[in-house]
C-alpha cells in the first residue's frame, strides 16, 4: 500500500471536505452534500464553497471561510434546511476528532436566489468562518 507523505508539522484538511463529512452524518440521506451543484440539481442539496480569508493561524489552528448554499422543495423547506445546517455546524464544535474547533456564522441564513436559475428555485445561503484543527500523523 502506498504511503502518502504528509507534513511533519501536520496539515489542515480541506475545509469543505470536513464540513461535508460532518453534515453527511447529520442530514437526512436524501440531502446531497457537495462542493458544486450537480447537473441535474437534486431537489435537496447543500453546497460548500471555500473562499479566501485571512486571520491568525498557528500550527494547530487556522481559520477557513465557507459559503454554504441550500436548496429544497419550497422556500420554507429551504430556509429550514439552511437553519439546520447552521445548527449542525455549531454542534460540530463539540464533537472531538472532526477537525472543527470553532464556528462563527458571519452571514446568517437568508434567501439568496440565483439570478441565472430559470426555475427561480429558492436558495438559501449562509457564510461561516471555521477554525480548523490540524491533522497530525503519528
Amino acid at each position, binding site marked *: 500500500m502506498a504511503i502518502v507523505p504528509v507534513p511533519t508539522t501536520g496539515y489542515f484538511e480541506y475545509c469543505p471536505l470536513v464540513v461535508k463529512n460532518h453534515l453527511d452524518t447529520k442530514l437526512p440521506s436524501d440531502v446531497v452534500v457537495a462542493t458544486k451543484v450537480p447537473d441535474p440539481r437534486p431537489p435537496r442539496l447543500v453546497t460548500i*464553497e471555500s*473562499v*479566501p*480569508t*485571512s*486571520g491568525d493561524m498557528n500550527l494547530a489552528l487556522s*481559520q477557513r*471561510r465557507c*459559503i454554504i448554499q441550500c436548496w429544497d422543495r419550497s422556500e420554507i423547506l429551504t430556509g429550514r434546511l439552511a437553519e439546520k445546517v447552521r445548527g449542525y455546524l455549531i454542534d460540530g464544535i463539540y464533537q472531538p476528532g472532526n477537525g472543527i474547533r470553532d464556528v462563527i456564522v458571519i*452571514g446568517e441564513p437568508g434567501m*439568496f*436566489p*440565483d*439570478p*441565472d436559475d430559470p426555475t427561480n428555485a429558492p436558495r438559501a*445561503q449562509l*457564510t461561516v*468562518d471555521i477554525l480548523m484543527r490540524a491533522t497530525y500523523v503519528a
Partner: protein
Amino acid sequence: MANENRLEFNEAAWDALLTHVVDVWAEPKAEMIAAQANQEILSATSDGRDDPLPAGKRDYMVSTEGSRPLQNGDYRATVVTVTNRAKAHNARTNALVKNFHLGGGA
C-alpha cells in the same frame, strides 16, 4: 471629604477620532474590495455588462459615496451594490464575500 478628581468624556473629540479612522483606514480597505468587484463585472460575460452606468456611479461603491451615504459618525465603511447588474453579479458570484479578504482584515 468629596473626591474632586473627575474625568469628562469629550464626545466631540471621540467622534473626530473615529471619523478619522474611518476616513484613513476603513474606507481605503472598502475601496479595495469595491475595485476588485467592479473589475470582475467588466470581465463577466453576463447580460448587462455593457449597460451605461448612472452618472457618477460605479457598480460596487463604498457606502459613503452612495446616494444615501452613511455618516462617518456611524464608524463604518461598507461596500454596496449600486446597480441592478451589480446585485445580480453578486448573487451569481458572491463577489463581496469572496473579495472581503482584500480589505486586509478577516
